[in-house]
């Protein structure tokens, strides 16, 4: 089975500005890829090219093997924009009904109830958008992105307006989506969120990919901390592989070991290092 989303050497120019410079990435079915980068790195532009809102200057993006923006590609994707709005006069149920009609898969009321229940808006189906909080509107936006049978989800900052409980709900939802074989490209500034849910991350800076891989692969060792006899000893050059040897040596010298912590860089540190290195 081919990738759910594939970008090949995508460039986007706005006049003299290069918003994207040869970006290539893939999202496999059932894979959740986090797209990271500072403001202006080109994340939203890439997502917009993938859903056909913006045309690439060079290169191409495919959704399930079809050119981005084609009817077949649009039928296969669900999209939540970073800055979106639904008409204030519509109720949550009407928003989903409209999108069901546009997708062309009928207006299944049971499916709408299921989606609203999934995002925690089961009690708000008759509430107008203008009466909803920002967080509720964002939940509705996620439900809207799931209308139809998307095989790719493009989520641009889906949790920016949510409280911690809301973010946890979205994490659970994303796990469910992944289990159903849907590929997800998640654009977020919330690095801990990305670290918690994403299989892989791609870091963009100044329109180019500066790092990509599993969060654990991107992390660098930062030594080992071992708690012995009420104090913590740090071995800054040690790695996970060195832990058994160090513990054996400590025990051999008569010290009691109470805890071991292998330290690595966090995703945030990796992100800052790569983004700042590119900016210099």
């Amino acid at each position, binding site marked *: 089975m081919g990738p759910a989303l594939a970008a090949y050497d995508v460039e986007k120019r706005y006049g003299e500005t290069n918003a994207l410079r040869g970006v290539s990435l893939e999202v496999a079915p059932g894979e959740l890829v986090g797209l990271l980068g500072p403001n202006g790195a080109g994340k939203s532009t890439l997502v917009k090219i993938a859903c056909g*809102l913006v045309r690439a200057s060079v290169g191409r993006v495919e959704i399930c093997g079809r050119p981005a923006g084609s*009817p077949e590609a*649009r039928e296969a994707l669900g999209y939540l924009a970073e*800055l979106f709005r639904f*008409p204030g006069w519509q109720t949550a149920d009407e928003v989903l009904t*409209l*999108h069901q*009609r546009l997708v062309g898969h009928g207006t299944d009321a049971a499916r709408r109830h299921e989606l609203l229940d999934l995002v925690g808006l089961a009690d708000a189906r008759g509430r107008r958008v203008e009466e909803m909080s920002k967080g509720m509107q964002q939940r509705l936006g996620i439900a809207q992105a799931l209308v139809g049978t998307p095989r790719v989800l493009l989520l641009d900052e889906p949790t920016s307006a949510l409280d911690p409980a809301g973010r946890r709900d979205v994490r659970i939802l994303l796990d469910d989506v992944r289990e159903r074989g849907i590929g997800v490209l998640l654009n977020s500034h919330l690095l801990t969120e990305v670290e918690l849910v994403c299989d892989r991350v791609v870091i963009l800076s100044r329109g180019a990919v500066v790092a990509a891989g599993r969060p654990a692969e991107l992390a660098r060792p930062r030594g080992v901390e071992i708690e012995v006899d009420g104090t913590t000893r740090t071995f800054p050059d040690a790695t996970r592989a060195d832990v058994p040897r160090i513990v054996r040596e400590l025990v051999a010298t008569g010290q009691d070991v109470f805890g071991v912590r292998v330290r690595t860089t966090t995703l945030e540190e990796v992100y800052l290092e790569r983004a700042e290195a590119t900016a210099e």
Partner: protein
Amino acid sequence: MSGVATISAHALQEALRRRVFTVVAVLTLAFLGLFWLGVAKAFEEARRVQPASELLEVDVAVGATLLGLAMFAILFLGAVLGVFLTLGAVRGEAEGGLLQPLVVRPVGRSAFLLGRFLGAAAVCTVYVVVVFASAAAILRVAGGWWPDEFAAPALELAAAVVLLCALSLLGSVFLSTIANGIAIFMLFGAGLTAGLLGQIGEALSSQTLEDVGRRTSYALPFEALYQDGLHRLTSDTFGAAAFVVRLGPFGGADAADTGVLLWAVVYLGLVAVAASAAFARRDL
């Protein structure tokens, strides 16, 4: 329901829920009430100052002039309705984040534009025809006068407003909501002014002014449709009454030649193609 019908229905539902139709209906009823009062008084005064033998001619002059005035008002009201239903359809809604969730759906951009156009065109056509019929009925009841042609002027007036809707949609692809509204109403005013200049040119036998009017008819054919509709109100009327009517700004119009009327259809098609092509290339 097809994508085009869904978009049209969505636009109409929005107008309904935002009470656009309620406001329009109330203000139009106020306009028609005022028009009725004006018609009754105008006929009463005109008949009082004219000898009985000339009553028929006076009725024609007063009736045609007042329905011409009503046509101008209906064109303006229809244009306001049509332009406000469409002026922010693309760029305005994209800037507000309303458009993106809709156009990423399989319905496509051309279908989106067509849906918005058909929704606005349907509303404006019904509105213009109903208000024109109401104004004609008022003239019949309050003044006993009926235009020489009824259906053609009503449809031409509606077509003029539909053309303005199409121009407004085209403008919405390029311009922000405010800029597009200003542009369309300036075009509207320019078209009507050029039409009047053409009439004045004909009265004064000024070739230059006549050329201005004729060229404007091709550049902005809504004006030619309006002028042709005005002409048809008294197309079978001759003599002193016709002369008096054609001296005024609401009855002195020329019949449009078939070329202009056909051009209006082609023009609508060209505007549709231009809007669709521009929207297809526009980054959102």
